[in-house]
């Protein structure tokens, strides 16, 4: 879970070798070539284990963004490294506001001396402090455009942000006239970002569903073994009924996450509706399960050594990462035509 660098390089290597990092990368580019359904399944495991790795940043957001942008040259150069885990990529999409719409883009790109240069402050960059490759969406005279920059390039300064959930790595990245290569998008850049964010939300939903299920599992297990008043505490309705309610939450979260994944896999018309439903349902379910799980444990879960609080921290972080549950409920209603 928590490590100094934010992830464990050995684990990262294993994940890469198992093909997990390249799940959504085409086989031709060294990936597993599978899709959202398999990704979601893996993310359930990630959530259960509270795994801390740049998978979401590099293997999901960055990989999908590159695919969706459709610049063959750039993709063929970067995707194999990403899939192999030898390069860690991340995307710079928003600034201090943490607003995940087009208006949230804070970086600007302009041509200087015949090449593109980027300037401005990005924030909420997933695993920014571990990334080699930065995919940057920026405003230009020609509208929104996407760029690749090296994290080691001159003018890049990366500041790790102090996250409450220590298993989450976020950075602020400032660009001061940083040289970058423009990615030639085959279609709308923002549409590509939306595709990447939809996949990220599905992955996150899977993580949340898996996390919720794990908390429920170990809480139920505790309720079967902990004896108070001469009975297992799980025999008390107060505990039993909380557990039953949480089962409804977690099963609904799993259904929602898997459904959204399959809608993405089919590239269905109402994918956005399914994604936003999963986004708020899974976020709320994980927070509620993790929160009630602590209450059901009692004092033991109030101690640092017990893992329950780590799940609550992750649940709270996940619920804010790519838009709040309220934001996604609103988006859901809009997708329903209201």
């Amino acid at each position, binding site marked *: 879970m928590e490590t100094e660098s934010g992830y464990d390089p050995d684990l990262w290597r294993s994940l890469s070798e198992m093909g997990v990092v390249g799940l959504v990368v085409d086989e031709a580019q060294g990936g597993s070539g599978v899709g959202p359904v398999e990704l979601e399944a893996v993310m359930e495991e990630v959530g259960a284990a509270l795994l801390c790795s740049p998978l979401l940043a590099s293997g999901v957001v960055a990989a999908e963004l590159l695919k969706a942008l459709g610049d063959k040259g750039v993709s063929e150069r970067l995707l194999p490294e990403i899939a192999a885990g030898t390069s860690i990529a991340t995307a710079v999409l928003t600034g201090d506001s943490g607003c995940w719409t087009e208006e949230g883009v804070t970086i600007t790109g302009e041509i200087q001396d015949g090449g593109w240069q980027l300037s401005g402050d990005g924030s909420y960059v997933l695993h920014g402090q571990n990334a080699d490759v930065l995919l940057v969406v920026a405003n230009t005279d020609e509208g929104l455009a996407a760029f690749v920059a090296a994290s080691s390039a001159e003018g890049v300064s990366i500041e790790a942000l102090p996250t409450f959930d220590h298993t989450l790595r976020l950075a602020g990245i400032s660009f001061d006239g940083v040289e970058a290569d423009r990615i030639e998008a085959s279609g709308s850049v923002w549409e590509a970002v939306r595709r990447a964010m939809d996949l990220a939300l599905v992955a996150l939903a899977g993580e949340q569903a898996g996390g919720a299920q794990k908390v429920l599992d170990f809480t139920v297990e505790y309720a079967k073994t902990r004896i108070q008043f001469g009975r297992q505490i799980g025999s*008390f309705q107060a505990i039993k009924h909380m557990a039953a309610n949480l089962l409804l939450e977690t099963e609904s979260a799993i259904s929602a996450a898997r459904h959204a994944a399959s809608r993405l896999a089919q590239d269905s018309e109402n994918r956005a509706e399914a994604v936003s439903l999963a986004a708020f349902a899974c976020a709320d379910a994980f927070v509620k399960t993790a929160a009630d799980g602590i209450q059901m444990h009692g004092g033991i879960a109030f101690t640092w050594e017990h893992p329950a609080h780590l799940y609550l921290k992750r649940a709270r972080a996940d619920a804010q990462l790519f838009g709040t549950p309220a934001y996604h409920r609103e988006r859901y209603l809009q997708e329903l035509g209201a």
Partner: protein
Amino acid sequence: MSSDNQSSNDVLREEVRQWLAENWRPEIARTLSQEQYGWETSETRKAWLANVVESRWAVPRWPQQWYGRDLSDEQGKIVEREFAAVRAPGAGQDRINLWANTLLAGGSQALKEKLLAPLLKSEVNMCLLYSEPGAGSDLAGIRTRADRQGDHYVINGQKVWTSGAAVADYGMLIARTDWDVPKHRGISFFFCPMKQPGIEVRPLRQITDESHFNEVFITDVIVPVENLLGELNTGWQVLNMALAYERSSMGESARGPRSGVAESRNEEPLVALAREARVLAEPKLRQDIAQAISYKRLNALNSARAKADLEQGTSSSIMSLGKLAMSRILHEEARVRTEILGAQSLFEGEHYPRAEDANFLTLNAYFTSIGGGTDQIQRNIIGERVLGLPKEPEVDKTVPFRDVRTS
């Protein structure tokens, strides 16, 4: 799947198709599609069902001896699909006919000969005589008694929450036959003839001001011994089997508004209501509406997952969540409707159909959160049977029923 199976399935499919082509005539289809569903079964429907039963398509998974064909479950589905494709009723009763399946599983030879075919042909009407005023959540606490006298049982007691009792020919009834053993072990299960003088049916007025249910007062009612299902005093097991049929179908549907106001097929009812009430732009309501709709959608996704699991042969823990989920859906939807309408919800009657709906749905939601096992009982069941949490200490589990405390 072996190619042998495959080809025999093809033969079967062809046989069903051909039979339907010959029998499911357009005029029958037209008549049945225009029928209103109610307690009485029309002659056309009865005639059609009789044909289905005699042609052995009603219960193809059942044994040859009882109107069946000894088909596998998979083959049974083939038959059902062909019937469904042309919207012909009557097939798949080996999966869904509560009365017939219970009778097949537990009935005496005599009773099966007498009633199986009529049940499959909808020639007899049935009702459920389980709940009692003193035995609601605690169904095993029933006090209706059955005493053996010669070749019949004499039943005395009172049942409640019975629908269709006034038109029923038989009721599936549980009664206590041994008072000196713990409560679950002294119950027997009967097919009780309803058309006799000792049966008095009184409609029960619900808080929705409807009367879908009855109280049934039972005085010296006679039941032949061959109408006993299962062994004497094993009625609790028969009952649980019968309840399993029922539960598996709950949580998938519930009554909607009764105002008769047409609802858009394309728009969520809550969205349509808020739009009509000109409050769809209110941010707080939008959150509530989205949340309420999500409960419904999530339940549908859960049901779909449960069905997929079942079809793959894995039993699913999600199935049992449906009723609890439905309770939340209904209460929350009624709450949000009220929120949308505001002061309008004070009214009722024909000039206020939207208010009528909100108020009706508010009260009718209790039909799901109380009826057929309260939410509280449902959470016990989920906690114990699905999550494997231990049961509470049961104070009356080992006590002779005679000595059990009652209200």
